[in-house]
């Protein structure tokens, strides 16, 4: 069912949609407590941009072997300009399991409300959770086709897979393919990019930098900060290695020389060393010295206050002996 799409549309997904969908899923999941039957399962915190949801969904862990994850449904809205489809926002919809369809009246009412606030947004499609697109989804898809001739179907996979590097989101479009002589609509997956507005970027950044909640000792904060830098440099390292391999292969002759790429690499390498000039060294050393000075000052203050306390204790403990005789215990 999932070949890759040939419609040539580019999809841009905003993080708000991802957070909305996972929030909806986690809410429904946690509302299924207390565990009565085997329908309660550990709510899976999912995808990297989601520390906030992770914090919100705390619960007991029960046997997840017989998990049945609730499927949630909703609608995605956004703008379509030419060949670019940009999905900005989403809202939830009621799903009627009896008729396998979405509540139409609710959808239209919500659509009207959103139109008042965001006049440019159109209903671009719908979303649901699960691992893969299913047959019954096609009915919902067809039902939406009278609002938008080619709706998109966004699927969020709530299972966390630690090894997976990408977001567990797939976007499907529908295409008419001829299978066994019958033209049928099937889902084809398409690629997408994540697009952020400034405000979204700030919140995603904030969530990604969640420090350990106990405020931590200085060491844990330092470790967290350094780990961030470490991963950034690691990525840089792997990309340089790719370039290196490529150039080596070109030198050996395995790949035909492509001058344009070589020129770009040479222009890139000319930007190195990136930070080295008299001015930089001056500024850097000045800042370094300032930091060291402040640390030194802080340590000195600490030391003098500890000494003061010690002297006070000493005096309190031994004062009565030294008062007589006029000997002063301290200057």
């Amino acid at each position: 069912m999932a070949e890759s799409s040939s419609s040539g549309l580019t999809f841009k997904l905003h993080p708000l949609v991802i957070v909305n969908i996972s929030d909806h899923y986690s809410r429904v999941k946690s509302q299924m407590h207390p565990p009565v039957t085997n329908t309660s399962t550990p709510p899976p915190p999912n995808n990297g941009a989601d520390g906030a949801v992770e914090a919100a969904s705390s619960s007991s862990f029960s046997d997840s072997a017989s998990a049945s994850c609730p499927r949630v449904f909703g609608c995605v809205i956004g703008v379509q300009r030419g060949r670019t489809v940009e999905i900005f926002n989403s809202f939830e919809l009621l799903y009627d399991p009896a008729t396998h369809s979405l509540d139409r009246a609710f959808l239209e009412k919500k659509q009207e409300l959103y139109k008042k606030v965001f006049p440019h947004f159109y209903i671009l499609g719908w979303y649901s959770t699960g691992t893969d697109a299913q047959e019954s989804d096609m009915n919902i898809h067809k039902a939406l086709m009278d609002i938008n001739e080619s709706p998109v179907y966004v699927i969020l996979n709530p299972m966390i897979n630690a090894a997976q590097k990408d977001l567990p989101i797939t976007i499907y479009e529908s295409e008419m393919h001829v299978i066994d002589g019958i033209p049928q609509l099937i889902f084809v997956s398409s690629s997408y990019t994540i697009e952020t507005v400034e405000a979204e970027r700030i919140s995603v950044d904030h969530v990604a930098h969640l420090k350990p909640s106990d405020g931590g000792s200085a060491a844990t904060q330092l470790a967290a900060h350094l780990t961030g830098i470490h991963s950034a440099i690691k990525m840089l390292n792997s990309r340089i290695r790719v370039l290196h391999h490529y150039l080596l292969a070109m030198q050996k002759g395995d790949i035909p020389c492509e001058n344009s790429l070589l020129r770009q690499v040479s222009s890139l390498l000319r930007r190195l060393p990136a930070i080295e000039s008299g001015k930089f060294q001056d500024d850097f050393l000045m800042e370094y010295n300032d930091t060291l000075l402040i640390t030194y000052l802080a340590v000195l203050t600490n030391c003098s206050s500890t000494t003061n306390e010690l002297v006070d204790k000493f005096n309190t403990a031994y004062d009565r002996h030294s008062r007589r005789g006029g000997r002063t215990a301290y200057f």
Partner: protein
Amino acid sequence: MEVEQKQAQVIEHFVKQASSLQGSSLVSLIVQLTSHSSLFVFSEILAVPNVLELQGTGYAVYIDLLRLFAHGTWSDYKSNASLLPPLVPDQITKLKQLTVLSLAEMNRVLSYDQLLEQLDLSNVRELEDFLINDCMYAGIVKGKLDHLRRSFEVQFAAGRDLRPGQLGNLIQTLDDWLDTTNNALLTIEEKIKWADKKCELDAIHKKAVNDRVEEVKKSVNNKLD
């Protein structure tokens, strides 16, 4: 790299034309493309067989000219001016632009004096005009002009054609860069371990001090009883 993309089409166009021409018409094509305002790379043209054929004929000077444009600078031209055909003003400007690119290869900070000498310009005003109009607006160089320190800091310079030996240099540079990043990674890992260890030692020390305090308290209490 927008410069490369802009040039890709021009290069294709000229290569197509070059493969269909011969002799003197090829010569006029070479003159045309060395004056073209957005073409700065010539190695693809040099690879076209018709161009290489010019080597033995009376037009061999034009191959040398093409090679000069691909790898050389304005001072190279001046020292060999007798061997090469005269240049039209457009070509002179282009050669000077290419000279700036070559200089940017060596240093990131180019002093005005050096530039004035290499480009044969007489005053700073002309130099700055040349840099701004012909280099930065053409998109081949990006940088900052420091009038007070009389220098030009290059942040980005488009690549010129590579001489055959330079590929080895590129690989060496990449190698060094890899080593540096690896070292940086190792240093960071060490620092993280050091910070964690310090934290542990601190906790142990605190615990030892607290235990001692408890002991002393107990012994004082016992004495009082």
